[in-house]
């Protein structure tokens, strides 16, 4: 009842809602979308979103409010990209916001050849890389001379024997040692489960380059893990 009254009195909302909206959205999302004064609903509720193309066509038809749904949906990933590259929350917030505003302005030129999310993450990645280069010109590449001193047969049981907090501490420590871009590559592929093709599109590397980088990073992580575990013993 409340939702029906709310929807019927909100022209912008009525425009973007299909007949069966009640099955597609959660109530919290309606209120949040139409009332920017409400707190970030993403903090408390797992939203059910429609396909990106739906919101894009709404924005292109003049419904600016629909862009809020796209921001809600992708804010975590865009912010993660920025913060991984910049390692500074304030700067990352600024860059992430800029990326969304740029994406909004360029939305009419989005051809749909790639996924919208990949296109958006690429904008965020490029913006963060540019900002990072302004701040710190040198880039620490992966150590090519790394030797394979590890055996996963030895590492796996030792790590498995640790508590979850210790495991988390270990992997965060190891990832912090990596250059920002490498840290992001690992996050995109292993944590966010992006495919090699998607990682390549976001970062602008070729797919084979992404594979080589991930292969070397994996080797480096195991090597560092081995050394850390030896020190602990």
């Amino acid at each position, binding site marked *: 009842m409340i939702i029906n009254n709310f929807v019927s009195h909100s022209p912008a909302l009525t425009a973007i809602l299909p007949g069966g909206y009640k099955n597609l959205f959660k109530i919290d999302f309606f209120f949040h979308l139409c009332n920017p004064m409400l707190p970030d609903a993403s903090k408390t509720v797992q939203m059910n979103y429609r396909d990106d193309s739906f919101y894009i066509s709404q924005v292109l038809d003049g419904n600016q409010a629909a862009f809020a749904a796209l921001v809600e949906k992708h*804010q975590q990933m865009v912010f*993660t990209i920025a913060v991984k590259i910049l390692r500074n929350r304030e700067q990352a917030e600024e860059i992430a916001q800029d990326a969304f*505003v740029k994406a909004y*302005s360029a939305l009419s030129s989005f051809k749909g050849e790639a996924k919208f999310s990949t296109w958006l993450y690429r904008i965020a990645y490029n913006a963060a890389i540019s900002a990072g280069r302004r701040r710190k010109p040198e880039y620490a590449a992966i150590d090519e001379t790394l030797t394979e001193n590890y055996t996963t*047969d030895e590492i*796996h049981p030792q790590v498995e024997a640790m508590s979850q907090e210790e*495991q988390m501490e270990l992997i965060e420590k190891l990832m912090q040692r990596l250059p920002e871009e490498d840290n992001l590559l690992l996050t995109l592929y292993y944590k966010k489960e992006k495919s090699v093709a998607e990682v390549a599109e976001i970062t602008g590397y070729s797919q084979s380059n992404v594979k080589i980088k991930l292969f070397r990073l*994996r080797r480096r992580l195991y090597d560092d893990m081995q050394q850390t575990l030896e020190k602990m013993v």
Partner: protein
Amino acid sequence: MDYNKNINNIDDGFLRRLIKLTAEEPVPDGFVKKIMQQLPASEQQPMLAEPSRRWIWIVAVAAVAVAIVVAIPFSTGDFFARFASADGFQIYRQLFGSVVGSFSKGFSAIHISSIGFLILISTLLLYLLNLLLRRWFDQNPSAAQPCR
């Protein structure tokens, strides 16, 4: 032992599980609201070219359909007779000649002179050029900036 030498084998369940344990940086409070406030005013929204690309296609298809309906009936027999005896690459030349002939007969049948025909073609070409330039400037916004 796992001295993995194959770069295609990067899928590592152990590492994936471990990396998934890393904490996610929470998005700052009011992030969406701040972005929505930064968006350009409503009159600068990224709207599609007026009225809509769908309409452009509908108009273009309708125009071609009307032209065919007008032109072809006046010279159907001639149209097919021309390339009945043609072969190989000749068929394309004949086909081109037939299409041009059909249109010119069609236009003369509805009393449009060659000048009228030229005006029509020029208008169509200018319209297409306008579309192409708009699309090109949309894709290269920097090119639309005034020279300094």
